[in-house]
């Protein structure tokens, strides 16, 4: 941990905070550019009731003041009151949905990284032989298949046809299939990344040196090759987070998981503006923080990279 590295972290953190601020600002001001009031769609309400509601939710104040209030509340993890699920705060609803989404997302990311790295390394080590060919064909097919097709096919086969898994996500074992269907695309992507970076590393001089000095094959692979081939995978962590968070909207809808993604889609159907804002900002912050972490981790893993 030298000074230069600390400077780098500060700079990246500053960028991340600025981006989070921009996400909040964009979300807030686009939502307030809507001509209609969030309550006007509801039936048979007098102007007086709407005025009272607007007062309750703080919509009667000037927009800049609302924005400052909103920012201040977000810092305190208060995203306001939901208008679609009356009687709930947005924060409550988000944390309720996040309970499921976090489990699915974390496990899917773990599966994707572990399986992806292992399969990619196998493909690179067996280059041109049948394991490589099989892995390449399967991963090419997987990255060309949209998540909703994959998830629906898995649902059709394992829940509706064979009935191996419960159809309700809240039952024990119900989260297994959503997790798997969410992990397939990033897994295939990581496999391809890992394969090409592993091939690159295996051609380097230091690998030849390690072999020449008589190091055991397993040691060469695990100590020298695999470790250095991991860096491109780390740079994918940020985009993977974005994929998993947005992909869970589709997967949770298909498997009826009461998670964040389904909540988001439902809040759009109910035109619950506070919820839409809250979830967008929450997901945006998660993605930006993950990008920040993967940037830092990348520099730690590969000290050769210039810190600029």
């Amino acid at each position, binding site marked *: 941990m030298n000074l230069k590295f600390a400077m780098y972290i500060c700079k990246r953190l500053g*960028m991340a905070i600025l981006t989070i601020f921009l996400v909040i600002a964009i979300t807030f001001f686009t*939502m307030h*550019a809507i001509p209609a009031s969030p309550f006007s769609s509801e039936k048979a309400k007098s102007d007086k009731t709407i005025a009272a509601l607007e007062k309750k939710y703080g919509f009667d104040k000037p927009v800049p003041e609302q924005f400052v209030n909103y920012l201040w509340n977000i810092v305190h993890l208060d995203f306001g009151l939901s208008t679609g699920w009356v009687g709930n705060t947005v924060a409550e609803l988000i944390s309720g949905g996040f309970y499921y989404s976090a489990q699915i997302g974390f496990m899917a990311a773990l599966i994707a990284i572990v399986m992806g790295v292992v399969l990619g390394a196998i493909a690179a080590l067996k280059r041109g032989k049948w394991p490589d060919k099989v892995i390449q064909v399967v991963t*090419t097919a997987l990255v*060309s298949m*949209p*998540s909703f097709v994959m998830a629906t096919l898995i649902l059709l086969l394992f829940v509706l046809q064979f009935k191996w898994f419960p159809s309700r996500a809240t039952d024990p074992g119900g989260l297994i299939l959503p997790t798997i269907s969410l992990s397939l695309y990033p897994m295939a992507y990581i496999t391809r990344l890992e394969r090409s970076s592993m091939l690159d590393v295996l051609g380097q001089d230091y690998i030849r040196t390690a072999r020449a000095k008589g190091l055991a094959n397993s040691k060469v692979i695990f100590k020298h090759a695999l470790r250095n081939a991991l860096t491109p995978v780390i740079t994918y962590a940020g985009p993977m987070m974005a994929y998993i968070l*947005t992909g869970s909207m589709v997967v949770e809808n*298909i498997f009826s998981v009461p998670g964040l993604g389904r909540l988001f889609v439902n809040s759009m159907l109910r035109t619950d503006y506070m919820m839409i804002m809250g979830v967008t900002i929450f997901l945006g912050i998660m993605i930006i923080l993950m990008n920040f972490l993967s940037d830092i981790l990348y520099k730690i893993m590969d000290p050769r990279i210039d810190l600029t």
Partner: protein
Amino acid sequence: MQNNEVFKNPLSLQLDPKLFEPATTQEKAQQVIMRDSVSFGRDALRRLLKNKIAVICMAVILLIALIAFLVPEFYPYSYTKQDVTAKNLLPFQYSQKEMAKIEKGEKLFPHIMGTDSLGRDYAIRVIYGTRISLLVGIVAAVIVVVIGIIYGSISGYFGGRVDMIMMRIVDIIYALPDVLIVILLYVVIKDVVSQSKNDLIVRLGAGMVSIFLVFGLLYWVSMARQVRGQILSIKEQEFVLYSQAIGASPARIIRKHMIPNCISVIIITAAMQIPSAIFTESFLSFLGLGVSIPMPSLGSLASEARSGLVSFPHLLVFPALSIFLIVLSFNLLGNGLRDAFDPKLRS
């Protein structure tokens, strides 16, 4: 020295000009380079055509495009026409009413992919959905190429503070989650679009308008980065210095010297962006945020197919297969283009 005689000082070390004789036409002909010089573009194209997978993918994309844009012109069914007597037909099945007509000797075009739960011919709906997907891919590629090149080349050419500010903007845009922004825009412009006087915008629907807006706002950043990186390295080369010395304007230098040298990076990046754009559209249509009904999209068709999944799995299979083929072909073609255009792999 007026005459042809060239004299040599006897003490000079110069070669005696008298020893030389003019070359014959035959000898001159030997100096002509036997092969035509191969330009970079033609060379890359030749390598691309040697790649069997890439050629097959190009053929598949062309075929799908032809089907998507020509077949609706003469297809006997329309994508909106509902026929309550012909609900949920399996592929190549006829309804009882249609069977009666056939027995009378009428010729009817078969429902190649059956019909949906409203009795609409499914094949034409899948074809229209494919058309939407291809359209999204093409529009995305055009937007990415135009904005990305202009932005990236300005940033790379001028460098310094301009470059720093422009790249910080790119960094921030790069960190914005695109699907979230599409959804946000959709919610905002939903009412504006449905009341719009422009017929095209109404037909496209709020979902498509916001998707195209997001392509214009966010999708070009990786192209801009790539082009900028390329320009930065080209900028240092002598032919650019020469152009500047003889007074060429920056616009001319960028247009005539820099962009032609970036062409491989541009092609590869554009080819990689197309599948991701198609994915985004189908993803949003699946959530119900894409094209407006009754216009079908491959994503919305797959979403509708979920209600009768066990009895009519073919309603999912056909749109899924179509999108899979399109994206797979573009992915493999992108790999082929990368191999063909990457100068590092040139042999």
